[in-house]
């Protein structure tokens, strides 16, 4: 008990520190203190409405009665989510079930013994076992074990293009790098920025490196890095990718002001929708972003294709990068593991899948394919589903795949490369130094 109260004290100190970042101590969640109510933390964006319904459905179900537990959902403002989760998990007010990105985002919790190993639970439960696409299910785990159950749409990174601009300049979506460079040259001649880029948010810049490294060196290059081998950054593919980025920048592929353009504030999507830029490399959520802000553009002029292959590169054009989906994980200190697992099963249900589809998401459930006609844009939904289903490799976004103490300086180095503060060689040597 003594170490427990010390931990509480330190947690309070961290909360005091947190107030600098505008965070607040979490409310009076029931935490691990026993009783029948479980707390679930979810990323509090628009899509959380699906989890709200899921919780209501579960609380009224026979499964909840049988497990003698109900779930209380706590929506955490989006940008604060990782920091708030970390502070809460170090305190007695930890959630029983929590949203995460799988991979590196949960590694610290696993190392601290705070996660329930779901491998056997999933293997022995037909609903969970056959409910999800296997590649997506496994991406929620670590070292071959399952620590998460998929609970949102898939988020592959896609090369979007403006159909009107392409038609006007008689262009076809590129399938090879040479075609991409050719399109680049033609667009620049016409005074159009080839690619929109929300550089001030940094993570959109990262997407370029993720795909380039995959296409040049194959998915194994980042796999090594993800598994803790920092020398993997020394792979020639990383240097080649950085040099390619440099060439694109020098070539004006992103225009001039990209470092001052944001994604989150709608800057880059607007540049793209208004035809100032012809293409946009972005996560699948670009579709719903455009649908919200420029519905006409999203419905009529938005085109999409896979990231082109690079001649002589080791990566398959069908390889995908991005976020396979988000996951529910269970806190090892939960007071009612049975109820938590019963709740997770709702994410595999048809009702849950249908709600995701109606929201414009493409679920990672195995029954999704037959239901996609109900999507607001079935053509796009099917493209996305096939893209993930057929992908020989799905690389988790680098900043989610590696531990937070590596991802933060990594993003800084990516930004330095894009703003010209470091050369491709300096970029590689800085990354090799990250531990």
């Amino acid at each position, binding site marked *: 008990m003594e*170490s427990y109260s*010390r*931990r509480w*004290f*330190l947690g309070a*100190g*961290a909360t*005091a*520190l*947190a107030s*600098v*970042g*505008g*965070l607040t101590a979490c409310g009076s969640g029931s935490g691990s203190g026993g009783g029948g109510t479980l707390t679930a933390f979810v990323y509090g964006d628009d899509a959380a409405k699906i989890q709200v319904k899921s919780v209501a459905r579960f609380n009224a179900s026979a499964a909840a009665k049988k497990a003698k537990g109900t779930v209380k959902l706590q929506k955490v403002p989006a940008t604060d989510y990782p*920091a708030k989760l*970390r*502070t809460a*998990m*170090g305190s007695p007010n930890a959630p029983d079930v929590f949203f995460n990105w799988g991979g590196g985002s949960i590694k*610290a*919790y696993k190392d*601290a013994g*705070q996660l329930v190993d779901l491998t056997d639970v999933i293997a022995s439960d037909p609903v969970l076992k056959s409910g999800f696409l296997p590649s997506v299910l496994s991406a929620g785990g670590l070292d071959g074990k399952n620590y998460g159950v998929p609970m949102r749409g898939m988020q592959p990174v896609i090369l979007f293009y403006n159909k009107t601009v392409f038609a006007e300049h008689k262009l076809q979506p590129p399938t090879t790098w040479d075609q991409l460079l050719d399109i680049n040259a033609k667009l620049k001649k016409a005074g159009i920025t080839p690619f929109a880029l929300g*550089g*001030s948010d*940094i993570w959109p810049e990262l997407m370029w490196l993720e795909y380039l490294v995959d296409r040049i060196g194959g998915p194994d290059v980042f796999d090594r890095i993800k598994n803790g081998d920092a020398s993997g950054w020394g792979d020639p593919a990383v240097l080649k990718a950085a040099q390619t980025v440099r060439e694109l920048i020098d070539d004006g592929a992103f225009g*001039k*002001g*990209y*470092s*001052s*353009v*944001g994604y989150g*504030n709608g*800057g880059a999507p*607007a*540049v793209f929708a208004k035809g*100032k830029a012809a293409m946009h490399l972005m996560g699948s959520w670009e579709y719903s972003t455009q649908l919200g802000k420029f519905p006409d553009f999203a419905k009529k002029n938005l085109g999409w294709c896979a990231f082109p292959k690079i001649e002589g590169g080791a990566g398959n054009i069908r390889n995908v990068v991005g976020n396979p989906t988000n996951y529910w994980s269970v806190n090892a200190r939960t007071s009612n593991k049975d109820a938590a697992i019963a709740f997770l099963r709702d994410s595999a249900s048809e009702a849950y899948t249908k709600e995701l589809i109606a929201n414009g998401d493409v679920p990672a459930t195995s029954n999704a394919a037959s239901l996609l006609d109900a999507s607001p844009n079935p053509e796009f939904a099917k493209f996305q589903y096939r893209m993930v289903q057929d992908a020989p490799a799905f690389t988790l976004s680098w900043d989610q795949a590696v531990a*937070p*103490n590596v991802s*933060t*300086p990594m993003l*800084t180095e990516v*930004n*330095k490369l894009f*703003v010209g*503060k*470091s050369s491709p060689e300096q970029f590689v040597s800085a990354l090799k130094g990250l531990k």
Partner: protein
Amino acid sequence: MALPGILFFVFFAVGPMVLAFYLSFTQWNGLGDPRPVGLANWRKLLNDDRLTQSLTVTVALTVVSWVFQTVISLLLGVWAAGRQRNRAVLSAIFFTPFLLSSTAISLLFYALLDPNFGIIHADTLGTTSGAFLAIVFVGGWQFIPFHTLIYQGGARQIPEVLYQAAAIDGAGRLRQFFSITLPQLRNTATTSGVLMVVGSLTYFETVLILTQGGPGTDTAILPYLMYQAGFKSYDFGYASAVASFLVIAATALSLLMVRLSGFGAMRSTREGM
């Protein structure tokens, strides 16, 4: 009578500070118990290139902000202390930015600085000097009204007789300003200056929202470095070392300023008064 106040101060200010100092000698990712690591965080901090760089940025930001804000708020404050028509109305309007939250102001300017749809069609936040000046400007835009108010109060305290005597001696308005107003505002300038300097040292939201410390690490001031280490990398031990360093530096600096300006001695600035 002061006991409740002291208790609150100990609980909310001294306690966390001591705790942060303790954490700076540990390694802790927020989960489980902190592991003592001796001086490792401090050694890392003093050998961290980012410290030198963020110190340079912090000092530059403080100095430039101080000059920018002092010049404008001094002039505005002296003007607002006069008796022009509509002065009160205009002063009230000037004061508005100070009432807005820094976050709202930063988000507003972040949108205004978009090169495609904003007011300046240039890569302002993508260049070192552009990002730096944007932070100085946005900070000034928010805090100049407050300092104007301080200078206005100071200027109103200057006895009218001094100006009347000067006018009889034939001094013009410019001469009056430099020989009477400025010297009489010395203590006001110190108060406002200390607030500005301490404010610049703890400047945070604007950097977080406008530049995220970028381009690269060119605007990563000390508080941002602390935030990044603590709440992005979850290296709370290192973040605590940065925080402790910041407390020591800020205390030393404000003591130094008070001492150099003679403010602490409370000498009267008025002959015979």
